């Protein structure tokens, strides 16, 4: 597989939805496969809240991409046929401009001063990326969860630059419960004594405990009750592999381990920024309702939900489907079992993979 990882600079900068302007910014971009001569085979993959540009294959430190089960040679998103692009979103912490970047006006890391970007801002920056890569339009823009919101926003914001959109385990706006969960996560970060109002890098520390707790809560919401029961039940963790003395159950050990790992790599300000973008997104915010918001959409939509997902349950996808049908948009709404709750969108299953590849090819 032809993998290319590059940092692309946008010297012209961009105006943000909240009125701020970024004078210049950088995006960390990974791409797979090749753009064909007619430039008709480009696919944009949008990552979810904690994802990044590394979607497929192994990177230099041998990490497997977050959507490797779906993207690759002869997989659902077939890199032998398609030129697949994925970038770390603006405000991220995997190489693109974000809170960890140096603020040119102060020569210190932005920290909490990095502007709060939105889903629309991401889509606008991805549009600039598309032009930079000399791609006339996307054959398919796809993502799960927060990535699905970007795919939806693409179809609304740039109707003639996108042929098909894949909106998986997503919604046209976050629910009250989604916002509530995210606020608990943010609060645990803010209340970490190492947070320093977001300027922890200047103090040479990171609010590790806060991020860890936030992630542990997040993990519970990403999995289904059934999946947790099956995977962990009430089994006790054996002493030899306990991460701490306080741990009794396997599920505790799992959350502790996952939280700890995440807290070592993920930036706290990015956590706050990404969840704020997710909470703030409402596809209908500039219209009377979702139906009027989708008025100009030309892309064909594929909306997939999972029965086991209680964070963004399938009914939320159906709201998009109904609004699409009201606008005579060619749109399909498919619900699959999914064993992994909200995280189901990340994993291969025969049905899921078949539907994605058939939709891309149809």
């Amino acid at each position, binding site marked *: 597989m032809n993998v290319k990882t590059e940092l692309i600079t946008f010297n012209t900068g961009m105006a943000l939805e909240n009125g701020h302007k970024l004078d210049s910014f950088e995006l960390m971009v990974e791409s797979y496969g090749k753009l064909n001569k007619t430039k008709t085979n480009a696919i944009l993959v949008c990552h979810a809240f904690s994802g990044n540009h590394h979607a497929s294959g192994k990177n230099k430190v041998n990490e497997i991409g977050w959507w490797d089960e779906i993207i690759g040679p002869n997989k659902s998103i077939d890199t032998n046929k398609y030129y697949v692009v994925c970038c770390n979103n603006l405000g991220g912490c995997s190489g693109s401009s974000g809170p960890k970047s140096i603020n040119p006006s102060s020569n210190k890391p932005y920290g909490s001063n990095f502007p709060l970007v939105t889903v629309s801002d991401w889509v606008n920056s991805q549009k600039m990326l598309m032009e930079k890569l000399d791609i006339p339009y996307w054959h398919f823009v796809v993502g799960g969860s927060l990535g699905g919101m970007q795919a939806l926003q693409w179809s609304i914001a740039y109707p003639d630059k996108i042929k098909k959109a894949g909106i998986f385990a997503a919604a046209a706006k976050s629910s009250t419960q989604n916002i509530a969960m995210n606020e608990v996560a943010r609060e645990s970060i803010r209340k970490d004594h190492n947070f320093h109002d977001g300027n922890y890098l200047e103090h040479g520390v990171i609010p590790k405990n806060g991020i860890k707790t936030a992630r542990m809560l997040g993990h519970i919401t990403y999995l289904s009750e059934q999946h947790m029961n099956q995977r962990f039940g009430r089994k006790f963790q054996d002493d030899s592999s306990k991460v701490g003395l306080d741990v009794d159950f396997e599920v505790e050990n799992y959350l502790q381990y996952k939280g700890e790992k995440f807290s070592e790599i993920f930036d706290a300000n990015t956590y706050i920024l990404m969840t704020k973008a997710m909470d703030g997104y409402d596809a209908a915010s500039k219209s009377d309702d979702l139906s009027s918001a989708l008025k100009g959409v030309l892309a064909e939509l594929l909306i997939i939900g999972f029965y086991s997902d209680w964070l963004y349950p399938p009914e939320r996808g159906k709201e998009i489907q*109904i609004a699409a*049908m009201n606008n005579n948009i060619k749109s399909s*709404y*498919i619900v699959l079992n999914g064993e992994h709750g909200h995280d189901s969108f990340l994993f291969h299953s025969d*049905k899921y993979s078949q*539907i994605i590849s058939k939709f891309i*090819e*149809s």
Partner: protein
Amino acid sequence: MNNKLSKIINAWVPKEGKVIDFGCGDGSLLEELMKTKNILGYGVEINDKKIESCVSKGVPVIKQDIDKGINEFKSSNFDISIMARSIQCLKDPSLALNRMLKLSKRCVVTLPNLGYWKCRLNLAYGRMPVTPELPSSWHETDNIHLCTINDFEDLCKKEGIRIMNKVFLGSNGAQSNLSSLSPNLFAIEGVYLLEKQ
């Protein structure tokens, strides 16, 4: 779906119309209507394999149990709704008919005829009918609300549903003199174009 049946339905579907097909199966009827009549069609289906076929044909499809939702699509302004060979599988066929006629002014319904003489013969011998059109045995069939042509037309009358057009298919799957003359005895399938009075 056989050629003859899809031709009959095709003739009743308005050009460039907006169509919803409940129990659309592999999407072949909608695919044909998309090609020949340039319609905008949506299929409703519960079977995942059939849904996959729809997606590969480029037919928009919604995974949905028809028993649980016809009303959900009422904001969509359909020209016509179709329910071919499915109404007998529903928990409440009469409610479904009325709901379809709220989605769209007209609807097409096709149903197997339990009054067909071979079915009657089966019953005369003391057995539940098993025919090419009704191939499953009583304990395996999805057909929980079978009726005869006369029964169905009675229901339409009772519900204030006008039969705008009807065609009866004989044993060869096409219209025949016998099936038109005495449908309740000789038709294997009734094909109806309905409208709310």
